[in-house]
């Protein structure tokens, strides 16, 4: 059994095909005729571009448009006039094409590698990929082609390059194992898009796994099991089949309304981190966006994003979700989220410090830029504003006053926006929970952020091994808090949702139904499963379970009771 990074979910079983990179070594030499050598390079470049173009077109169909842009990008890079002229210059100075290519690629590699921006540094992998693609053409070798593998192949490679993934035949590749790459690498993104189980960064995978080995890739756990015993293999097969069946069965819930077994409607929406995620949310059948974390806009930038930049991002999500609700959380900075250009002071206790709505209200002019952008986007869809980390009523009042100020400005400027835009709060502190009745009178909605609510209620950091045992949503203190928040919201007639991870917890869902939670905001891949679980419970059944569970005294007892009751 080998361990690696769990990059793409599922269990894949098959026969290993260890793809060995072609030998691209050469002996540098001075060509006799520079013009002829330049023509040789041009021919190799043309052949490379032709092949890459075909791959990009194929990939557009098999993987997706966005992923295929990685391939078209390779053509842009390889035919770059600066790159071509640098190579030609070196050939004229008596270098062979291979050497000229290597030197110029090295130059670009180090330029990209030195960048402060991740998005630029990531181009290093593309430089390496196009270098070996063109060099293979020059040397008359073939780079690894994954298009003609037999069915049930487990591909084992040192690194899965974008050009290799372009050739993958989804029908034949049952799993992927690599020696490098993390959860955010190209390989991982593409494996997930293709829904092929993948485990990355398995040390020496190409050496320890042999061609023809039977391999089980568990992309959910991040393990690779070679040549399992008969008994082990049939256990894996049963698990893989069960997982595949369960996944296929969930498709029955696509396009269906979200409601309990006795017909109480619930809203099932998605948590997203950037405008592109809205597409994934829609594809997974989300009924809106319950939490759009606006931080990405600020964290990806070198300075404060302008009103227009922010507006463009919010508008994109609003348009993508059409008339479905889109709840956008205003800047949640501080704590573990650092944004260098804001120059926040180091604090001894950042989680209890100057963060989220506290920071924003202290910088009203800056906050108004975001509020104006949100208001402008509200003309294009059902955009709602959500305040993070509220602990007292004043914060809600102050934020709402700023929203009104922005409305006035926009009105005077003749800019359209939704006059009745809803302003709600996240309830993620014990303080907010305790004054939920008062907050409910001044807010249009609540969304319970369970991750912070558990942390602050239990006073336990889930990242700290020694206190993590306390960090549990099943703790009676946390459950009582959630119940109180939902009750206060419902009593005041406002919508109460949950956007923390607990909203998708199969064990907790009946409790949330019983408490009267109206909206479940979960990660896009959890949508169908959450809809299924909601549909399995009637309010009466959920109430009976909740009544029993709320008598229990410890998290262990609660978890045990909920596990027993799970359907």
């Amino acid at each position, binding site marked *: 059994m080998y361990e690696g990074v769990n990059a793409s979910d599922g269990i894949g079983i098959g026969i290993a095909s260890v793809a060995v990179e072609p030998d691209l070594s050469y002996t540098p030499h001075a060509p006799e005729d520079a013009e002829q050598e330049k023509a040789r390079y041009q021919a190799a470049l043309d052949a490379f571009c032709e092949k890459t173009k075909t791959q990009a077109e194929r990939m557009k169909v098999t993987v997706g448009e966005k992923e295929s842009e990685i391939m078209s990008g390779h053509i*842009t890079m390889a035919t*770059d*006039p600066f*790159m071509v002229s640098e190579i030609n210059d070196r050939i004229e100075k008596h270098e062979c094409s291979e050497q000229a290519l290597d030197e110029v690629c090295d130059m670009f590699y180090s330029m990209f590698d030195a960048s402060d921006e991740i*998005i630029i540094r990531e*181009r290093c992998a593309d430089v390496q990929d196009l270098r070996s693609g063109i060099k293979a053409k020059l040397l008359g070798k073939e780079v690894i082609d994954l298009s003609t593998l037999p069915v049930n192949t487990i591909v084992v490679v040192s690194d899965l390059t974008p050009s290799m993934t372009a050739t993958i035949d989804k029908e034949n590749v049952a799993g992927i194992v690599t020696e490098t790459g993390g959860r955010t690498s190209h390989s991982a993104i593409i494996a997930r898009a293709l829904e092929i189980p993948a485990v990355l960064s398995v040390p020496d995978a190409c050496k320890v796994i042999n061609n023809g080995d039977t391999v089980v890739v568990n992309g959910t756990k991040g393990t690779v099991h070679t040549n399992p015993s008969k008994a082990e293999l049939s256990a894996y097969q049963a698990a893989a089949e069960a997982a595949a069946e369960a996944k296929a069965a969930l498709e029955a819930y696509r396009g269906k309304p979200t409601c309990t077994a006795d017909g109480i409607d619930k809203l099932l929406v998605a948590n997203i981190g950037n405008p592109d995620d809205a597409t994934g949310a829609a594809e997974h059948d989300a009924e809106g966006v319950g939490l759009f974390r606006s931080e990405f806009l600020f964290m990806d930038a070198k300075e404060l*994003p302008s009103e227009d930049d922010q507006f463009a991002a919010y508008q994109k999500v609003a348009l993508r979700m059409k008339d479905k609700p889109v709840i956008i959380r205003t800047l949640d900075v501080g704590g573990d989220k650092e944004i260098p250009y804001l120059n926040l002071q180091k604090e001894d206790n950042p989680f209890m410090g100057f963060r989220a709505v506290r920071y924003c209200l202290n910088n009203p002019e800056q906050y108004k830029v975001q509020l104006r952008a949100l208001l402008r986007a509200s003309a294009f869809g059902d955009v709602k504003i959500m305040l993070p980390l509220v602990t007292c009523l004043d914060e809600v009042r102050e934020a709402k006053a700023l929203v009104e100020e922005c409305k006035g400005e926009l009105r005077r400027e003749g800019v359209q926006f939704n006059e009745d835009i809803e302003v709600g709060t996240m309830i993620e502190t014990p303080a907010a929970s305790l004054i939920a009745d008062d907050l409910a009178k001044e807010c249009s909605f609540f969304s319970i952020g369970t991750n912070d609510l558990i942390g602050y209620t239990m006073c336990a950091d889930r990242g700290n091994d020694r206190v993590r045992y306390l960090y549990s949503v099943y703790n009676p203190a946390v459950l009582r808090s959630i119940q109180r928040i939902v009750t206060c919201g419902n009593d005041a007639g406002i919508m109460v949702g949950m956007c923390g991870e607990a909203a998708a917890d199969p064990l907790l869902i009946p409790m949330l139904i019983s408490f009267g939670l109206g909206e479940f905001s979960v990660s896009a891949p959890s949508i169908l499963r959450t809809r299924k679980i909601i549909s399995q419970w009637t309010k009466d059944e959920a109430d009976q379970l909740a009544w029993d569970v709320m008598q229990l005294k410890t998290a262990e007892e609660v978890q045990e009771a909920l596990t027993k009751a799970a359907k």
Partner: protein
Amino acid sequence: MVSKTVTLTNPQGLHMRPAGTFASAMGKFASNVTIVTGGKDVNGKSPMALMAAGIGCGTEIEIKCDGADEQEALDSAVQLVESGIGE
């Protein structure tokens, strides 16, 4: 030679797609196109050089065009940058 200073507004800076779009638009002009950023001259017709320059959102850049169709090239470049280079 003509030149103008503009501010890049693309949220993720001049990465692959906008760099490619900008360079290929400039490639249609006979004039040389140079971007001056952080005191360095960058070839405006090379997406690789533009990317490597790591021009972030909000950076002021000077666009210099030199050649037969310099004014036309400059107008086109400025318009492109101001409109967010297709993003």
